[in-house]
């Protein structure tokens, strides 16, 4: 399953227009503590969070995550969006809360470790 597939099937908003979404999503991780994601996120994971600080982009790069989905209708901070564009980190969003989004992702075959 690629980000394109997931975005289409779950109606995710794409904040980073122009960044390819063809990368396969290998798994998922949900956390709002960036230190936790640094510790437990895996390469190719789609990260579900409500943190919008620019540091989320650095964590996604560090862990080679497939992308980030911001929940609860949160918009990325301006600098976060700039950094995501610069680092080519796909940044998506949904009005859904984390619990609901993760449930739907799981139903589509995106699993945790």
């Amino acid at each position, binding site marked *: 399953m690629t980000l394109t597939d997931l975005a289409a099937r779950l109606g995710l908003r794409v904040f980073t227009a122009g960044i390819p979404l063809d990368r396969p999503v290998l798994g998922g991780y949900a956390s*709002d*503590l*960036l*230190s*936790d*994601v*640094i510790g437990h996120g895996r390469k190719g994971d789609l990260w579900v969070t409500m*943190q919008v*600080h*620019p*540091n989320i982009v*650095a*964590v996604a790069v560090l862990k080679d995550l497939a992308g980030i989905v911001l929940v609860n209708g949160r918009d990325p*901070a301006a600098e976060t969006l700039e950094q995501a564009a610069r680092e080519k980190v796909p940044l998506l969003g949904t009005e859904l809360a984390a619990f609901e989004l993760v449930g739907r992702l799981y139903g589509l075959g995106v699993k945790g470790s």
Partner: protein
Amino acid sequence: MSPRAVVDRARAVGLDLIAVTDHNTTENATAVLEAARGTGLAVLPGIELTSAEEVHILGLFDPAAELGAFQDEVFRNLPDVPSKRKFIEDQVIVDAADYVTGFSPRCLFGATLFSVHDAVALIHGHGGLAIACHVDRDSFSIISQLGFIPPGLSLEAVEVSPRLTVAEARTALGPFDPLPVVRFSDAHKPEEIGCATTDFIVASPGIGEIRLALAGQDGRRVIPS
């Protein structure tokens, strides 16, 4: 933590300088300043501000600073969620003689809408020093919440909790260079006052001197504890 108990305990354990840093409010600082008057204990008004990322940032101010506008700005950015009465009753506002004069009606343990950058800018805008709190803790620490200290965040220092020494924190979490590392008690009970301290080599216990010590300027400095 009544003002007189705080002052008595601080003096009993030999402190020269303390700061009053309630969560998201400076409302009780004046009472402690007054309670300490004439005792030889210096008191800085302050705050432990909760950012939108749930990072705790310490703001320390000059005792003469007018903090009304600062506090108004904090309250404007602290979501006014209805709080339970039992919490409100814990959020007393007191005078220097320990009398309860009111209650802070806001949910003070909540997060403000300020990003860490906005929180630091607000503190600086009112002449304060901004310090990232208890960076070694698993919650409400800039490291736990944001993974690392964002580049360009103009903190004056980072603080470690009493659980470990500055040297241990540098080993476990990184050097924090070029930021100085201080260690404070984060006391929530009188008996915790003084359980961790930091020595500042300064001419007087004022905010300007502390600023110089943190910057390592003019012969002022911090001795890591």
